[in-house]
């Protein structure tokens, strides 16, 4: 039987014929190994296949055998047959049951082969698209002979529903070992391994493979593809959100993401409040205030505090101030006639103002040696800025600080 197949293979047909030939040969081989019952049919098939290869038809090849071939394999479902209409049509009638009517025999044979080998060659991650076929013929290297074999190897399966014109392409690989692997993997219980195709080629396409026993209509396949896209996205989000590695499950992940986004938004609110409070200090008249240094003033703003509600008062200023014993003195010396809360608030801003001004004085010198932004954007900033020279200097310094910190984002 096998040697007969090989003799078939070695025949000198044109590309298409050999392709069909090879497919039939492989199918026959597979059949032989799996189906003892079908021996008679196979023999008939072999006998009948020979004369028909000339004309690229195989109607009774298909019809007789299709039904049996359908049984054990992964059956991708009725909707998938539609794609195989795209395959080069042999043109013969095809009287088999159900949707096979739509599929020309050569395509059906292809599909058979594809289905069978899809069972086995999970590791190969192969499949074909019609448009690729010609390219792949040129690309794929074959140790064996004939261009037909190349196309055959390319047809190594895994077709997924080309649902609604969506191209779920699956690249083909692993050609030369296909034939050998075919035999070795046939015996493997591959139906379970058929589950998900690896997404090796990271295009926008998601590879979906139908599992055994799962519905294989186009809707569920599309649904499965969508779900896999979403799970990919969740993995990306897991990298973004810190501390999500231990959480498995979509619901927990989503909760984590929601918490993180909320905390980030609250941080922005808090920081803007802080800047609002601190910025008021910039407007103070610098000349009237004594140039005292308060080194231990600030530092303890709870940067990551989660504010349940943003009250009107910048309450965060109260905390470090309560620890400072200097406050009373400041209140008296600087801002004499104010209420307690206001005094504290203004004292805090005055403290910051003083520290600001004192630090600015010391920092004026290095600025002259600075490299300004070659684009001149910082010079634009200076033009727009407040007329106070100290403020201008401070903004330049901020710009410098921000510019020269390691940048982590990529956009």
């Amino acid at each position, binding site marked *: 039987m096998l040697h007969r197949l090989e003799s078939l293979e070695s025949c000198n047909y044109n590309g298409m014929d050999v392709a069909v030939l090879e497919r039939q040969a492989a199918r026959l081989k597979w059949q032989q190994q799996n189906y003892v019952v079908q021996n008679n049919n196979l023999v008939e098939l072999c006998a009948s296949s020979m004369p028909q290869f000339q004309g690229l038809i195989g109607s009774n090849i298909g019809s007789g055998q299709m039904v049996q071939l359908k049984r054990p394999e992964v059956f991708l479902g009725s909707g998938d047959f539609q794609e195989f209409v795209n395959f080069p049509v042999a043109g013969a009638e095809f009287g088999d049951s159900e949707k096979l009517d739509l599929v020309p025999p050569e395509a059906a044979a292809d599909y058979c082969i594809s289905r069978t080998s899809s069972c086995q060659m999970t590791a190969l991650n192969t499949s074909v698209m019609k448009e690729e076929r010609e390219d792949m013929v040129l690309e794929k290297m074959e140790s064996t002979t004939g261009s037909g074999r190349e196309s055959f190897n390319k047809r190594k399966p895994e077709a997924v529903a080309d649902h609604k014109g969506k191209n779920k392409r699956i690249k083909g690989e692993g050609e030369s070992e296909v034939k050998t692997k075919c035999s070795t993997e046939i015996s493997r219980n591959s139906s379970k391994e058929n589950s998900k195709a690896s997404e090796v080629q990271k295009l926008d396409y998601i590879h979906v493979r139908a599992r055994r026993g799962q519905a294989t209509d186009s809707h569920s396949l599309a649904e499965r593809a969508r779900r896999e896209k979403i799970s990919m996205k969740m993995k990306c989000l897991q990298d973004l959100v810190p501390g999500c590695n231990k959480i498995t499950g979509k619901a927990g992940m989503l909760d984590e993401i929601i918490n993180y986004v909320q905390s980030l938004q609250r941080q922005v609110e808090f920081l803007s409040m802080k800047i609002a409070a601190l910025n008021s200090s910039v407007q103070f008249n610098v000349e009237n205030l004594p140039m005292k240094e308060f080194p231990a003033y600030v530092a303890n703003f709870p940067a990551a505090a989660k504010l349940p509600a943003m009250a009107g008062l910048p309450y965060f200023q109260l905390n470090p101030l309560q620890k400072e014993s200097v406050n009373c003195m400041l209140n008296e010396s600087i801002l004499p006639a104010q209420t307690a809360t206001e005094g504290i608030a203004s004292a805090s801003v005055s403290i910051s103002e003083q520290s600001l001004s004192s630090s600015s004085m010391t920092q004026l010198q290095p600025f002259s040696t600075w490299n300004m932004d070659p684009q001149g954007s910082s010079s634009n900033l200076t033009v727009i800025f*407040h007329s106070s020279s100290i403020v201008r200097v401070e903004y330049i310094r901020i710009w410098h600080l921000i510019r020269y910190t390691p940048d982590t984002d990529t956009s």
Partner: protein
Amino acid sequence: MNKYNPPRMNPSSLRSRFATRFLRTLSKINAQKPTSSSSPTEIFRRYRRIKAAADKSMAYSVRSRRTWSRAMLWKLRTRPCGRRSVKTSTIIKSREARKTRHEKQNKNTTTTTTTTTGEDGVVFGVEADELRELVPGGEAMDLYNLLDETAHYIKCLTTQVQVMKKIADFYSP
């Protein structure tokens, strides 16, 4: 003598764009407000403006490449700046309501198709709605796009927080 070259930041990165704009707006806000503003209400008002400025500059830095930035910009533009535009805000609200209703119809159709087939719709129902409220412009997106926008939004938020933290830390050494 070795000249120390500090690591150059990409001048067109998100961080630099946001920092430039935000600093500019900050300076404008500083220039506009009165000098004796230390009352809580005044500070609160300034806080609101600064927060809006931060959001706006972030959205402008993204430059409407993303749905959330477009939604945020639209929201900021149509937000009543003061009391004068109450009327316009009601008009805008009705327009918005119509738009969101229309979008919700689309969303409902998509969600119904998804909930029938898999457990996705059921699992993500509550959390997805919460996420939609958080991310600007997320009301009318399906789950995949919502997750996409969330990822970008998180990235931009972290940038924003870093820059603002540096500014705030600078002013309070």
